């Protein structure tokens, strides 16, 4: 089914609404954008990707503290700061500890993501313009986190933000060979242990089912 493509761009930001509401009608549209349909004309589709090769270089680059391959130091600092607000470091590790910026540097270097990289750079410049006009500061990463969050809330419906969100999540949950998900931080965050094999019971409900002999 089209479910094989859960990865497409999120062109619409989630609408804030009560979790307790049975939101059949509303979430249908968001759900489709989020997990089932192809979102046309977004940054992500333009970029839609392209086999990666030589990904281990990113991991090596990260662990050796080498310079970024694709991004400038300044671009990396900005994108890393946005990523750090999308999956923050709080009581548990976040995008920073997962090495998301190294994932971004790696995948944005793929020749088939040239357009995506160009769009991201445009988006970065627009964000920096907003940083300058709203806060009289030069760089997003120099703002305090309250101002960072305030600014991101203003741009959370833009293709730029959605693309950075996509790359942040991808960098947190893809295999470490691509440069992110360092030490399996992403899997640990969601309680997913990557094992080659499991045995039943898999969770609480099937354990109970077995116990009752249903």
């Amino acid at each position: 089914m089209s479910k094989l493509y859960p990865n497409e761009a999120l062109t619409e930001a989630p609408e804030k609404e009560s979790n307790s509401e049975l939101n059949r009608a509303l979430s249908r549209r968001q759900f489709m954008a989020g997990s089932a349909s192809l979102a046309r004309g977004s940054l992500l589709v333009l970029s839609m990707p392209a086999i990666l090769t030589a990904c281990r270089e990113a991991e090596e680059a990260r662990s050796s503290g080498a310079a970024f391959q694709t991004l400038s130091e300044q671009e990396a600092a900005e994108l890393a700061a946005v990523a750090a607000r999308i999956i923050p470091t709080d009581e548990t590790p976040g995008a920073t500890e997962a090495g998301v910026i190294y994932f971004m540097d790696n995948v944005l270097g793929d020749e088939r993501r040239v357009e995506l990289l160009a769009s991201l750079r445009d988006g970065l410049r627009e964000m920096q313009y907003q940083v300058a006009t709203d806060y009289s500061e030069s760089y997003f990463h120099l703002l305090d986190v309250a101002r960072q969050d305030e600014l991101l809330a203003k741009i959370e419906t833009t293709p730029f933000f959605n693309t950075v969100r996509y790359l942040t999540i991808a960098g947190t949950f893809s295999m470490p060979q691509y440069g992110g998900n360092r030490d399996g931080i992403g899997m640990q965050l969601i309680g997913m242990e990557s094992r080659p094999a499991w045995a039943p019971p898999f969770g609480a409900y099937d354990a109970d089912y077995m116990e009752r002999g249903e």
Partner: protein
Amino acid sequence: MAEAALPSFATREEVDFVVIGSGAAGGIMAKELATAGHSVVLLEQGPHLTAVDFTHDEWAIDHNGEHMWGASHGHPQTFRKSESDDAEERETVCGYAHNVGGSSMHFSGNFWRFRPIDFMEASVRGTIAGTNFADWPISYEDLEPYYTKVDWEIGVSGLQGSWDPPRSREYPCAPMPIKGPDVLLERAAKSLGLNPYPAPVAILSEPHNGRPPCAHCGYCNGFGCEFNAKSSSLVAMIPLALESGNCELRTYSTVYRIETNAEGRATEVLYYDADGNEQGQRTRAVVLCANGAETPRLLFLSESSRFPDGLANSSGMVGKNLMFNGYSTTVGLFDEPVNGWKSIPATRVIHDFYELDSSLGFYGGGGIDGRHPSRGTPLGFALSSPFMFGGASWGSDYKRDLAYQFSHCAAFDGHTTSLPQESNNITLDPNVQDKWGRPAIRCTYMDHPDDIATMRWFYEKSVELMEAAGGTNIGGFYAEDGQEGNVHLLGTCRMGTDPATSVIDANHRTHDVPNLFLCDGSSLVTSGRGQPTMTIMALAFRAADMINQAAERNEI
């Protein structure tokens, strides 16, 4: 290994059969023809991956199209909802895996048989205006021995349920152990007086035919099996075809034309080899098993003065009546860990609604099973969870929700009928070409109003089940504006007795070209209820049997 003994046939010398495509149908076809003693060249456009090549690499598979090649791999497709629209180029529309074993390599393995009603539904329910809803030229009884062959030779796990059609032999393997989402589904269904039962799956629950059982790793639907427990044609058929010594498998071989002679018989299959060189394999007969999108494209590409509208298309039905199957999903959250991300996609199914009551005012039917909302994939889940369950989509609240939801969620999915319509079809795109210069597959598709009504009915029934199961934050989706792509590619070279309204006869021989046979999703007359591969495989065993018998009688 068997491959050391592989034959190597000269392209200028006729082989008995060229089989185009090594997927669910083509793999069976090659094995059945080769083990019957025929010389077979099996052409596959992708690589021959095996268990050691398969990984849990969601980024490569879902986000870089490692198996399902699209525009970024030089294989664009185009889509439009109706003929009056301009078709738009897409990464992919009609999805399928490009490798030996085709999409059976990565399928979910839901292996419901069709039921007797599926083959004669137009007679029983009546035809439907504006559609090509029709009976099949074969019955369930004709196909039953071949369903059983799939059970045993391919390897299916299950337990005869109250709703199952009659079978001549038990399942070879016991049902797979139940998973959390299906415990929730089963209990909810029973509370509503329904009859859930173990889902039949092409995944081994116990050793069978020298293959090991499933290890429940969780990376199943969309992923190749690292244990050979998923019953693909890749692991169940291809090794036997090669061991016969009569089958040569040529990978990275992309067919662009079937040549015919002055008598209207197929003589040669033209293809690009791995190095991009043009090759031609001469043959006595051709069996085209390229899938419901590629098969019609190749027939169109094989047009000639004798076959001006495409090969085997005197009926005008090549490419038409495309059916995707409908789909709905309903998601919810639960108090205890469900852990649907482990093991196989689905272990229970509700078939009480196989045929919806005609008093509803529309035609349709289907089944509902329990799953993880994102096939158990962490990246896919993290991208979509706020849109499923509400809440923040970034920041600490998002992160906290995500950490809880991934293991505490379940989905109840509906799998439903599609009606055959001529306006839903595969044609050649006049503007877009693939990396070989072949016109891109252009898909024109809009679900019939009855198909959408059926999806909505299954969506609403699934919400009712999710409420009965005690789920919270219930959300979901069905394609209320029509689907714009799918991996079920059915009906585009339909089977029938009348050459004016069908492409192949009941034995899969094209009405127009006596030594050209077609067998894949394109052969289906109606869509079934959303799980077509079991039937495609049964048709392949039956077609191969009919072809072998015809060869015996010297009637190819």
